[in-house]
């Protein structure tokens, strides 16, 4: 199956007021296929969010090229945005709007209107079981309810590519379960899912391909079995530590 996402040699640096130039990504390459969940696994500050933001056309790479759903992110950002659903690591909803109003707002940007928009909103709300709290404004929703609305927003226009940036951040175990079930469902529907996280158990459960990102570089990519075999590790956690070059205090001594 062809690659839906292909990023090659992506570099990105930021200016930090105290630290000066900080390299967030250093020639990182990443790819993803439809019907698979591809993980971007890394510690905080490894470059996961920067990679997702470049793929979602929110940021521009300093170097390298990325193609999403057949469109170059640098030259056809509008078409890329039409093809993706982006779920950031905060629920990112408008507090004074009701869930349906939030969905209608974003649906409008995707060209949905009239009855088509209403049907899409209703379908997404049913799928994420938003009905019981549909009358409340988003400020009155629990973290889990907000995340469900956010997912509904991301899938409203039925995009072929879904980006999830640490989607279970701050969620209780039940809501996190809902999110993960949704990711599995999306994969089964043939979507290309990119899942950024630092939680090993989620990666083990969900992801078909794992890319370990560390200090702006993709250090290793493969299935769980391939990583375990290559690193001769009994668990993903051990393999991950090996990939990022971590040495325990005992080992160092």
């Amino acid at each position, binding site marked *: 199956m062809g690659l839906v996402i292909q990023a090659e040699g992506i570099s990105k640096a930021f200016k930090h007021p105290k630290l000066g130039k900080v390299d967030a990504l250093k020639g990182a390459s990443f790819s993803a296929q439809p019907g698979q969940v591809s993980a971007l696994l890394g510690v905080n500050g490894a470059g996961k969010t920067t990679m997702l933001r470049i793929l979602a056309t929110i940021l521009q790479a300093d170097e390298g090229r990325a193609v999403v759903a057949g469109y170059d992110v640098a030259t056809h950002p509008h078409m890329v*945005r039409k093809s993706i659903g982006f779920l*950031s690591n*905060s629920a*990112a909803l*408008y507090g*004074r709007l009701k869930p349906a109003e939030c969905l209608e707002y974003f649906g*409008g*940007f995707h060209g949905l209107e009239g009855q088509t928009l209403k049907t899409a909103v209703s379908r997404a709300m049913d799928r994420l079981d938003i009905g019981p709290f549909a009358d409340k404004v988003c400020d009155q929703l629990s973290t889990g309810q907000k995340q469900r609305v956010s997912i509904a927003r991301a899938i409203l226009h039925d995009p072929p590519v879904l980006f999830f940036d640490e989607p279970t951040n701050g969620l209780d175990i039940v809501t996190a379960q809902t999110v993960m079930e949704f990711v599995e469902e999306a994969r089964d529907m043939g979507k290309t899912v990119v899942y950024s996280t630092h939680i090993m158990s989620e990666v083990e459960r969900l992801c078909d391909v794992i890319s370990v990102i560390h200090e702006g570089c993709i250090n290793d990519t493969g299935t769980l079995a391939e990583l375990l075999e290559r690193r001769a590790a009994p668990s993903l956690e051990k393999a991950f530590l090996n990939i990022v070059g971590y040495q325990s205090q005992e080992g160092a001594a």
Partner: protein
Amino acid sequence: MKNILLVVKKEWRETLRDRRVLIGAFVMPMVLVFVMMTAFGNLQDVMEKRPELKIGLGEAPAGLTEALGKEVKVENSADQESAVAAVRKGTLGAYVTAQPDGQAGIYFDSSRPLSMAAASVVQRGLEEIRRGDLRRELADAGRPAELAEPYPSARIDVSEAQAGGSLLVMLLPYLVVLWTFYSGMSAASDLVAGEKERGTLETLLASPISRTEAAVGKLISLSLLCLAGGLATLAAMLVAAPLALASEGSSPPTFGAILTLAALLVPLALLFSSVLLVVSSAAKSMREAQTYLSMVSVVVLVPAIASQFIGITGQDQAAWVTWTPILNTAVAIGQALRGQLEGSLALKAALTSLAPAIVFAWMAVRMFQREGILKRS
């Protein structure tokens, strides 16, 4: 265009559900204008009722009691020390007694307006005594007694102003300008800085809307809010003006004047909204935005306050006034209220508001194109 309208619609929907903005932009100006106009109407009545002046007389020239008239309450007091203390205390307006050199000494307290007024009344009384002496001298010499009087004159007001020299006309431009700004200010921090803080800006920029459309949509929303705040102040004025202005003998602004005022507010609203959008875009958090906005409000406050006094200084036609943004609009609003708006001033006000508005709007759009727009603290 469709995306811009979506942004405007969404921003207004949110704004109309924000109690803080609703109170700040619409309720407060209406209540404030109504209360102030009513209060000023009453103040005018109070000012017309002269307070009773109390004057103490020691060794005063003969005939002074009669010369002071019936509106003044006269108390004879030989004890100069206690009379002067009473003047200082405010229980006596002024005290008159002869000085060693023969002059009539008028004791008054310059820190008390009533005491100053009492001293003037005594001064006029003394002048009247001297005029009486002069009239008698002239009569004895067979000359007309009128020669002792000031040259006969009559004051004829040729003003065509609808709202005269009213205190309200001085104050209203200031209120209208200020509330046009504050209405936008109440929502500006949330518009971009708030979206950064909540992460919704990132989601918006990952949607198929161009950054220019997002910026323009927010600019239009903010402009409409600024304009609505200014119009709310005008609406309150329309309700309260007939009551207040009638009490001071002035006629309220005509419908045409109100329309002119509304038109003057459009370029001003564009200027304010573009500045507010730049500030909100530059801030990394709502708190930072609010700090910056408070600083910017001082820039608006100074010309707005100056507009109240510019008429007294006679500088309202000066080039520096007519070409200073905000100040010229406030002066033009004052002229429109009096039904005397000069076309050239209105044009200058529009130009000096629109030119910087375009620059700031361009800056805001540029800021949206940059990655820094997502930077949050």
